[in-house]
């Protein structure tokens, strides 16, 4: 599979929108990790998910952006907010927020980051700058054809997984089985 490379012009606004959206995503990530109140973390995560949907739109993936907004921001985060409301106790916000091994964890993450930087610096030639614009009008149709053709088995397995997850979550959260 060779990447398709063609010379092409980039619209001016793309740079601005990329930096704006990715900055918003990273900023919301920082807020998720550092806020004391879990509701504020959830709000920040919602903002990050919506900014990421914008990034998907810039990558010519409108269907994945739509799925992200419906499922992630509109479904999973509602579930998170429900559970936060159920288990939110004032006492937990007055305790120490970061655990005892925070320095070791931070250093491990920094080491991982150094590994990423090394990989990207060494492999810079693998990612060409100018790439063809994929066709956006039939993105949903093409994904549909691929989902129900090539990835049919994975699709059925995913639906089975969701069924198991529903039954498991209901059983675990019930008061009396």
């Amino acid at each position, binding site marked *: 599979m060779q990447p398709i490379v063609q010379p092409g012009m980039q619209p001016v606004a793309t740079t601005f929108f990329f930096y704006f959206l990715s900055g918003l995503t990273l900023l919301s990530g920082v807020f998720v990790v550092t806020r004391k*109140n879990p*509701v*504020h973390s959830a*709000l920040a995560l*919602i903002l990050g998910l919506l900014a990421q949907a914008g990034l998907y739109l810039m990558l010519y993936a*409108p*269907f994945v*952006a*739509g*799925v992200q*907004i*419906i499922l992630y*921001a*509109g*479904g999973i*985060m*509602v579930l998170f*907010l*429900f559970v936060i*409301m159920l288990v939110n106790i004032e006492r937990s916000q007055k305790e120490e927020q970061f655990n005892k091994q925070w320095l070791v964890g931070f250093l491990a993450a920094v080491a991982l980051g150094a590994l990423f930087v090394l990989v990207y610096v060494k492999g810079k030639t693998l990612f060409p700058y100018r790439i063809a614009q994929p066709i*956006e*009008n*039939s*993105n*949903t*149709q093409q994904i549909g054809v691929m989902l129900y053709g090539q990835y049919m088995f994975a699709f059925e397995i995913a639906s089975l997984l969701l069924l198991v997850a529903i039954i498991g979550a209901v059983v675990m959260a019930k008061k009396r089985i």
Partner: protein
Amino acid sequence: MLNYITSYLSSDTTPGQAGNVFWAFVYIMVVFGGVSVAVMAMNWLERKALAHFQIRLGPMRVGPHGLLQPIADAIKLLTKEDIVPDKADKFVFWIAPLIILCASFTVYIVVPFGPTHAITDLNIGILFMLGVSSLSVLGVVMAGWASNSHYPLIGALRSSAQMVSYEVAMGMAVVSAVLMTSLHGLGPYGVGAGTSGTGTLSMIGIVQAQQEQHVWFLFKFFPLGFIAFGIFAIAMVAETNRAPFDLPEAESELTAGFHTEYSGLRWSLFMLGEYAAMIAVSSIAVTLWLGGWFRPFPNTLTGPTWDLVFSLFPGLSFLALAVIAFVGVARMPKHPYFRVQTIGLAGFGAVLGLIGLILFAPPVRDRIQDIFWFVAKVAGFMYLYIWYRATFPRYRFDQLMKVGWKVLLPIGIGVLILTAILGVLL
């Protein structure tokens, strides 16, 4: 620069597709203003219609027949004291109405008022509308939680559970309508090969598929399209927390539910978001099942004479409204106290008549067709909302959830499977 502005006027796509930021901005302002005016008009119409359903008169004093009542309400709400509960989380308390407002108004980007009269035509139009309107659940949950009081919390939990449940039924109905866009054949049962049969999620594409198949999807595979429309019509009333599914915000049950602790401008933002969401889901229903912006019978009653007859409808409807206003003027009491109101109503009737006459002029007449029919159909749905509120008793919460999961969802899945089977066979 001027070339940039005028170059769009000769194109035949939406501003979003043409990439024209200026005209997209103009369209956004027009739609925003239109929806705000529609919300105020809806407020007045609801109070008057509910009153007449209950054999009373409704607001009569503020303007002639209460026409200035929404403005008085807006001024009252804007000047009320802004009360924030003491232990409430200030940031979440502030942002909850904004989330509902933004989610309800962002949906209007893809609402098609005509073949090129939309702000943009996304490839994933209907998916975008469903997704963004599901973000208002987050605002409801946060409003209830941030108020730090148990009535709003229970109301918010109930309201969000109800909205999430009926979103699933809405999704099933929408998918069966989207399935119908990929069919060939003309007429309700798809005889003959008339169309190319490409399925599409874009709003304008769905309406054009209805036009190519010569039938509203309401009547497609009768009664399947009708049942799907019925499921969507019931689910959209539950989705917007309106009667008979308004237990979470009913005054007699829960002291106004999740927006109990909000006062003044913040409460009016909730109301604005709720009405805007009502208009948005009604426009989804109109686009998917009722043929969008097309006049009745665009394929069977064709020809310049029929086009002329149907193009007179906008002007005639405004003239009818003007006649009703003048009848109201004639019935006003002949007392000096009512002089200002009589003059006001006569002026209002004159303005309506003038708009009606303008809509008879040929250049305006041709361009206003699509927008008029779309808005007329959505207005019909708005009246149905008020009718439901006046007529039906409230559902109890467990009955509500039972209807959503055990009645609407199985019927929706059944309709989807039958539509798919019929689509393959026919």
